[in-house]
């Protein structure tokens, strides 16, 4: 262990997250690898190590002979201060080597609020933030993850972005980089060649011009870069890499368990949900393979918790069968099986009852909106009857803690919809009174609302976020309408949702704002204790840009989006149609019931396998 580190670690909180050396961490002989990859997660160790995608790509890269992928996370402020004070550059956990010495620095970016952490990590590594100030091929700074469907706010800082799923794409880019180095290409030549790979977006190869009103006039590809960068997907989940042998942290993380990804994509088509659109089409792992992975992962890790993960696990076609397979094994090995992201329907509740015998942890449902009309508008196909039925089953089955999640500010929302949330909560209390098997334990009902953030690649990408005053008015309206004592009402902090709305649909001019906010101290914006909107407002001021232009402005059908050079297969025509249907409160059937022609079927060569 580095002696300088040895001195600062006793002074910081949770030092075990800065040491590496965990079980299954991949160690390689430096002298026998030619490409060192620093895989950076712009959030804490506990968050990053809980991310399945991060673990998958770590495994995929380390399978490549000659390549060593190591992990880097954002230090907590106490550690950051120690690093800076002692002039210790940010280092990778496996080797302890400074990130700045790596060949490729790859960021996994799942959410916009992590952007400043990205900048901070580059800065802590002693690297120039802007790609143009890093003229050499090495280090190459790349980024992937869901947030990169609109990479524009960080376009100035990265050399390229990977669009879509990385299992195949990332190794292709790494191989191209190795070739470039062998053949002594310069960076521009490498980037031009990389842009030919499907899924690679090279921001510097696109020229963006603006109208006077700030909207985009044109996006012009340069040097033969494609008009549209089309996302990559894994075609056959059964053949894709699954990290059976994966790192087991020696300190507690957020999701400290085996995570089985049962399928990718979602059949539902909730109109506000970016993941629901960009991960299309739905692709399942086979039940047999999942059962195999489950056993092998439990055996290898020693975990006694396992969770089935996907965007909507109730929709796994053979869920009951899979749970049958897993139940016997889990029972014998004292493994707790949990199923988050279940729908509020009877089928799912019965399954929950069966699996969670002893422990009745809290239940979470996300009706998202308070009236059937608005739920239809956003295509959240869950009815109040279904929810009531689920609650009946839950309360009579001994559950006493329930959380309900909603959004305020959804397109077409009226006061009636807001008050509908209070009604649903009151209803839930009644259901509890009538059906609770054990009233002594009391009811803990939590209603949480967030401020709706319109996202790219959704039916609501054209929408304005409602104003802050309006959001606060609706919060107040709801707060006053929730009268039952058993109900706790939580609402999201407005500052975060506002900035998220700005960044989600931001253009590349925001690069300067990001940098200015970072210079003012923004670096851990995903953590409310460290987030301060005023820094950002000052940064916008300094750059002469208006955040409301990005958050609170409705776009026209003709407007060119900052992300218009990216395709997730789902066409804008389709999304626009979905938006029109939303305004008529007309639902779209799920992909299994009927294909509604979004465009993602091209992936599967004509027709989606929806089963």
């Amino acid at each position, binding site marked *: *262990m580095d002696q300088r580190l*040895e*001195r600062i*670690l*006793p002074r910081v909180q949770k*030092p*075990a997250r*800065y*040491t*590496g*050396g*965990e*079980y299954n*961490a991949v160690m390689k002989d430096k002298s026998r690898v030619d490409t060192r990859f620093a895989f950076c997660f712009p959030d804490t160790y506990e968050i990053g190590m809980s991310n399945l995608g991060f673990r998958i790509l770590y495994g995929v890269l380390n399978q490549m002979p000659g390549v060593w992928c190591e992990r880097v996370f954002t230090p907590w402020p106490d550690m950051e201060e120690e690093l800076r004070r002692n002039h210790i550059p940010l280092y990778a956990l496996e080797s302890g080597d400074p990130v700045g010495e790596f060949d490729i620095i790859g960021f996994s970016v799942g959410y916009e609020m992590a952007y400043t952490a990205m900048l901070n990590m580059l800065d802590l590594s002693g690297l120039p933030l802007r790609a143009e100030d890093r003229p050499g091929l090495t280090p190459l700074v790349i980024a992937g993850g869901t947030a990169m469907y609109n990479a524009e706010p960080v376009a100035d800082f990265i050399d390229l972005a990977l669009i879509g799923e990385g299992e195949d794409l990332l190794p292709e880019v790494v191989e191209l980089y190795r070739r470039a180095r062998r053949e002594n290409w310069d960076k521009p030549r490498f980037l031009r060649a990389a842009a030919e790979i499907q899924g690679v977006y090279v921001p510097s190869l696109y020229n963006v011009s603006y109208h006077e009103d700030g909207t985009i006039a044109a996006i012009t590809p340069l040097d033969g870069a494609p008009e549209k960068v089309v996302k990559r997907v894994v075609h056959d989940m059964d053949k894709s890499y699954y990290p059976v042998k994966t790192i*087991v942290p*020696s*300190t*507690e993380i957020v999701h400290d368990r085996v995570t089985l990804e049962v399928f990718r994509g979602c059949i539902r088509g909730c109109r506000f949900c970016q993941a629901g659109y960009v991960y299309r089409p739905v692709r399942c792992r086979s039940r047999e393979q999942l059962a195999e992975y489950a056993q092998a992962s439990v*055996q*290898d*890790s*020693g*975990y*006694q918790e396992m969770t089935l993960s996907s965007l909507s696990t109730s929709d796994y076609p053979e869920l009951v069968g899979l749970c049958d397979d897993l139940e016997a094994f889990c029972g014998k*090995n004292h493994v707790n099986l949990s199923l988050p992201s279940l729908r509020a329907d009877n089928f799912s509740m019965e399954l929950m009852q069966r699996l969670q015998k*002893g422990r009745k942890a809290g239940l979470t449902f996300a009706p998202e909106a308070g009236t059937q009309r608005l739920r239809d508008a956003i295509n959240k196909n869950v009815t109040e009857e279904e929810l009531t039925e689920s609650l009946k089953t839950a309360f009579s089955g001994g559950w006493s803690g329930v959380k309900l999640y909603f959004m305020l500010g959804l397109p077409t929302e009226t006061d009636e919809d807001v008050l509908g949330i209070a009604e649903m909560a009151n209803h839930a209390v009644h259901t509890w009174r009538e059906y609770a098997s054990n009233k002594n334990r009391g009811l803990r009902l939590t209603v949480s609302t967030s401020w709706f953030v319109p996202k790219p690649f959704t039916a609501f990408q054209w929408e304005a976020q409602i104003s802050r005053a309006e959001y606060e008015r609706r919060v107040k309206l709801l707060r006053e309408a929730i009268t039952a004592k058993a109900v706790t009402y939580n609402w999201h902090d407005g500052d975060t949702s506002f900035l998220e709305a700005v960044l989600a649909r931001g253009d590349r001019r925001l690069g300067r704002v990001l940098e200015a906010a970072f210079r003012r101290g923004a670096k851990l914006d995903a953590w409310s204790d460290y987030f301060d909107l005023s820094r950002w407002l000052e940064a916008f001021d300094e750059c002469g840009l208006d955040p409301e232009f990005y958050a609170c402005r409705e776009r026209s059908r003709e407007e060119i989006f900052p992300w218009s050079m990216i395709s997730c297969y789902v066409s804008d025509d389709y999304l626009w149609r979905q938006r029109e249907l939303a305004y008529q409160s007309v639902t779209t059937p799920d992909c299994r019931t009927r294909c509604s022609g979004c465009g993602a079927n091209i992936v599967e060569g004509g027709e989606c396998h929806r089963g």
Partner: protein
Amino acid sequence: MGKLRLLFVKEGRAVYISHLDLLRTFQRVFLRQGLVLRHSQGFHPHPIISFALPLSVGQASDCEILDFEVNEDMDGAGLPEALNAFMPEGIRAVDCYIPVRPVRELARLRCRVDLVYDGGVPEGAAEEIKKLLLGESVVIQKRTKRKAMADIDIRPMLHSLDILEAPGLLTLEAVVSAQNPGMNPALLAAAAEVHLPELAADFVRVRRLEMLDEKGEIFR
């Protein structure tokens, strides 16, 4: 059904693993190896597993003891090697056997406390520190369970002390009380810092070397 005792080393990167995390880590190591631990009875059964003497975060040890119970009859032979394939870096089992002595007979600890001086060891530091620690009483302030500060005399808990000097380094080799009451060897350095502030080290490193009984014999 059998009780077993595991002797293990904790060093390097693993010294930052906290007590609770280490407990979790060992439970998983056993499961990886396929060894089924005996569980407690009751509504929330948990594996029967305990450390003899919790080690502070940041300190290394050559002589940690973990007691646990298994469902089969076994004497632990071969288990250290088998477990070591499943350990995080820095934790290494060295022996496993059926315990004969109860943990309460573990009375003393032989340990090493390194005082690192970046600018070289100050003149006469070894003698001064030795004189201080082997004096009649060595009082320092310690936080009690009720968060108040209290004076304690650590002198009765120090049983022997040698100081070796190397360039930039003073090594305190000490035998201290392990429990009832025991003292954290780091307090030796803390006492020196309080009473001889001009001799304060730039960094202190602590390592447990051996577990001893009341007579100073090796405790197993």
